[in-house]
């Protein structure tokens, strides 16, 4: 992966992850919000429905309970002993002992009834509402002598009344004790409107219950805090209201006298309960979705990024190796990437074609230049081309690679390019050169190097041009390098150059025969020429060493083969160099 890309912009994986994560998170949040809103609405509706159902159920139950209560009370009020005792009570007025006896008769009777009925309190009053006797666990609130105001209908039908006794509220059902057509007293059942009662109602109604008397809370089935927040609140017949920060649905279930029984349902709590269930589901679903998104996007990013990485790696390697010849392998990641690779390859081909073309143009120009250079002197005409050919032959003999041969050929072709800067007078001087003139000549390798230097694609040839006059013994120019310090290509070109010079006629001498030239080469091994190169040269078939062999068929000089029959065989082995040279001479 390329570090540069990371620094500039986030990696694909990160981007895809972020995107997938973001989208899913948004979806989850949206779902959650929608769900919450809907849950709240649904919960409110269900609480309201629950309340209404409670109210209906409760109303039926309440009516039945009250009727039962009433019937109980009426049945109990028909007790003859009670009636007799109460009626007798009037006629015994003034006799305290007798009255006490009658009261205990009443109480005994009431206790019996209470044990059967299990009513919290049973009581009997005279017609003015003075309690004569009471029974039941709550009888302490109804002591004999206490005055109680009870509502009684004219026709004697029982009425439920709320009575406060000792700060306790009671729902009392009063029935007249009737003797003939006379009412002799009141008999009543009282049950406390306390928290226990509210809780029993809460169980029936399946909702919280609050009992309010004249707007004051007298009993609840709820917590003390809620009870506190109910104080002084005007509760509607039905509806919703805020209590202690929570939303409640309120429904009046029934009313007894001035006491009202309300059912309370907490929407907030129900929503919380419903929400926590669905919240968990949502949380798990969301976590799962996120996990899948992460895995999926990681996989996706990897699938996309991997081939891209491969591609960029290939490109990087290609750039590093400066090897643009091989086409990029298809990544196989996706059709798009393969297309990209193919396009790149086409581009590369086009570019290398163009490059090759421009290179060829350059070379053509340079070649033309060299040819023109050679043409300045009739004696050196075709020299560069011949040196190039011979160098390639030697190089091939030395088993150089084709690329090296190409380098060699081009370098050899251009080796004398620096002679452009040498005046014709010096160059074409038929006589011996003066030291000065020779110094001028000696400048041409450096000059040639300078000329070619700007042409980057001729970098490899530069050394050939610059060093093709260096000699193993260090007496060459321009640097006086020795032996191995001189690059092999330069040595090859040096040998080929010398050979061609020797076998070409000059104004001041004739052309040396090939064999003589070769002998000369042999002779100067280690001094002027590199042994390895000379050996390779000598091993060449005669035809190839022939000046102008590239143009003319080798058959024109068949004798050459006889004179120097494959000197490579002996020379290459280094067996009779002297013999070969002597023969040549």
């Amino acid at each position: 992966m390329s570090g540069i890309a990371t620094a500039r912009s986030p990696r694909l994986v990160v981007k895809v992850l972020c995107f997938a994560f973001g989208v899913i998170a948004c979806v989850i949040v949206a779902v959650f919000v929608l769900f919450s809103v809907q849950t709240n609405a649904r919960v409110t509706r269900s609480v309201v429905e629950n309340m209404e159902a409670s109210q209906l159920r409760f109303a039926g139950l309440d009516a039945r309970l009250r009727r039962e209560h009433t019937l109980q009370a009426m049945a109990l009020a028909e007790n003859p002993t009670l009636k007799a005792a109460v009626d007798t009570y009037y006629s015994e007025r003034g006799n305290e002992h007798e009255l006490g006896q009658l009261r205990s008769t009443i109480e005994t009777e009431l206790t019996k009834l209470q044990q059967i009925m299990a009513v919290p309190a049973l009581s009997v009053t005279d017609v003015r509402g003075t309690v004569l006797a009471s029974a039941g666990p709550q009888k302490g609130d109804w002591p004999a002598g206490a005055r109680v105001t009870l509502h009684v209908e004219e026709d004697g039908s029982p009425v439920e009344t709320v009575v406060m006794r000792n700060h306790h509220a009671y729902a009392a059902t009063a029935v007249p004790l009737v003797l003939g057509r006379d009412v002799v007293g009141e008999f009543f059942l009282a049950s406390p409107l306390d928290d226990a009662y509210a809780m029993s109602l809460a169980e029936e109604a399946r909702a919280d219950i609050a009992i309010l008397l004249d707007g004051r809370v007298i009993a609840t089935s709820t917590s003390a805090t809620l009870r506190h927040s109910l104080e002084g609140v005007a509760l509607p017949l039905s509806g919703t209201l805020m209590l202690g920060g929570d939303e409640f649905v309120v429904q009046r279930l029934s009313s007894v006298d001035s006491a009202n029984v309300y059912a309370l349902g907490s929407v907030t709590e129900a929503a919380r309960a419903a929400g926590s269930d669905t919240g968990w589901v949502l949380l798990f679903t969301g976590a799962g979705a996120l996990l899948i998104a992460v895995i999926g996007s990681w996989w996706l990013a990897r699938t996309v990024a991997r081939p891209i990485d491969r591609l960029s790696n290939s490109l990087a390697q290609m750039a590093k190796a400066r090897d643009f010849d091989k086409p990029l392998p298809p990544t196989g990641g996706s059709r798009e990437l393969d297309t990209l690779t193919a396009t790149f390859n086409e581009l590369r081909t086009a570019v290398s074609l163009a490059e090759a073309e421009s290179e060829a143009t350059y070379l053509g120009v340079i070649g033309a230049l060299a040819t023109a250079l050679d043409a300045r002197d009739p004696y050196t005409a075709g020299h560069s081309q011949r040196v190039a050919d011979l160098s390639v032959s030697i190089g091939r003999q030395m088993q150089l690679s084709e690329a090296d041969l190409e380098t060699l050929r081009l370098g050899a072709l251009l080796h004398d390019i620096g002679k452009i800067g040498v005046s014709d007078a010096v160059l074409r001087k038929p006589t011996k050169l003066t030291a000065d003139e020779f110094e001028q000549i000696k400048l041409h390798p450096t000059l040639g190097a300078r000329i070619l230097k700007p042409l980057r694609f001729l970098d490899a040839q530069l050394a050939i041009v610059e060093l093709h006059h260096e000699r193993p013994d260090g007496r060459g120019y321009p640097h006086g390098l020795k032996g191995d310090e001189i690059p092999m290509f330069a040595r090859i070109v040096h040998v080929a150059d010398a050979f061609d010079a020797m076998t070409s006629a000059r104004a001041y001498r004739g052309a040396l025969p090939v064999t003589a030239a070769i002998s000369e080469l042999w002779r100067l091994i280690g001094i002027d020429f590199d042994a390895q190169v000379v050996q390779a040269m000598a091993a060449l078939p005669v035809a190839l060493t022939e000046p102008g062999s590239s143009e003319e068929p080798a058959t024109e000089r068949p004798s050459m083969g006889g004179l120097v029959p494959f000197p490579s065989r002996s020379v290459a082995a280094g067996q009779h160099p002297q013999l070969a040279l002597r023969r040549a001479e």
Partner: protein
Amino acid sequence: MDRLQVCAGVALSMAVLCSSARPDVVARETATGSLTGRVHVVSHPARRLATAGVYPGRIVGIQTDRETSELDNVIVFVNATTRVDSVPQRVSIRQTNEEFVPHVVAVTAGSTVEFPNDDLIFHNVFSLSRVATFDLGRYPRNASKARTFTKPGVVKVFCHLHSHMSAIVRVFPHPYFAVPDRNGRFTIPDVPVGRVEITAWHERAGEVTRSASVEDGSAAELTFSLPLTDPE
């Protein structure tokens, strides 16, 4: 509650009649006079239901059109505790149509009250009153049980089977009492002369007491008014 009041007004005129004889009463030669008067009930002091009971129509065979008057439940008597012997009486309180008839009787001490059962159903007679606590048990139609009351006082009688039934037996140590007729008129004969307290009593209305002078051989007319206030 007080709407159940039945009007009761009492006008009592009293005549003290000389020597109006009651042959069965003492042959003593003491001077006696008569007390006459009139009771008019204009109001009932206690609650009274508009309907006959808690369960309307429950009491089968009740004779709702039976002529009743609060005057039947009033006793006028001389308020004296001195025992005056007299011939014991024998009176009846019949159990008819789930009612004790009459509702109120006044007897002298030592008298016997019979309780014949006229109904097709069983009845019972019992009392919780101090002066006569008793239970005659249950008995069927045409049977009768009796009870002799020796102590003076108010005896309230009930039926254990029918809680709406009640009756009152008022026992006096002397024979100087009367129950007014349908017009409210009554006569108490042979009352010894002297200053006496005369009381008009109703079981729930309570009582009103007046003083009167009984003079020999003369009849004193007294105007009485039963109290309409609540008894206390």
